[in-house]
């Protein structure tokens, strides 16, 4: 483990120094309705600072689902909403982030960072593989044998 990381980390038992039940996520959440949570995030995301931040994040290839997940987890940690209403609002927040990035003029928008699987039918796959094999065989036969250990002409 990195020595610097050990120094910067919390002291063992640090989590037990505060009275249990006082953390924000241990309190009743501020919003419990889907409409309230969506309102809260839409207000936050439409501000001028957010536009630029989301645009930069999208241009740097950060998936919108990752952004939404971080935002919702932070919301739960701060006691703004519960985790279940956060999970329900997840697709809405992703859609909102996509829209904001698009309107802000992001050049690329990654949604979930997973590439689409290319579906090729079996027949095409076999055809391509046979062509590739034939190409390799042709190249191998065309390479002139001039090496030190090459066979002499028959």
């Amino acid at each position: 483990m990195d020595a610097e990381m050990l120094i910067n980390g919390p002291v063992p038992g640090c989590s037990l120094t505060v009275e249990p039940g006082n953390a924000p996520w241990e309190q009743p959440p501020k919003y419990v309705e889907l409409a309230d949570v969506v309102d809260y995030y839409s207000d936050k995301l439409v501000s001028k600072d957010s536009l630029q931040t989301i645009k930069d994040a999208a241009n740097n290839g950060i998936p919108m689902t990752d952004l939404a997940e971080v935002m919702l987890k932070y919301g739960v940690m701060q006691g703004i909403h519960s985790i279940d209403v956060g999970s329900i609002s997840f697709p809405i927040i992703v859609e909102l982030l996509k829209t904001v990035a698009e309107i802000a003029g992001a050049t690329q928008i990654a949604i979930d960072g997973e590439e689409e699987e290319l579906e090729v039918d079996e027949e095409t796959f076999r055809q391509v593989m046979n062509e590739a094999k034939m190409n390799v065989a042709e190249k191998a036969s065309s390479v002139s044998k001039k090496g030190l250990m090459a066979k002499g002409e028959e």
Partner: protein
Amino acid sequence: MKKNYRKVMASIEPIINKDQSKPKPSKTGLLSPSSIPSSKETKSNDVMTQVAKYVKAIRDKKKEVINGR
């Protein structure tokens, strides 16, 4: 949350598209109905429908903003 995103969206998309494919009445008079009422139509207020409504509203707003530029 992230893992199930595609699955959730796959179940939301048909709900969004269902609303768009509704036939509109041909009459445009003042007293003409705004939509053709169907007997099968039932009001569902489950979570997926609510989420679909929000997603549709966001998409509509985006279209408006982009077309208004």
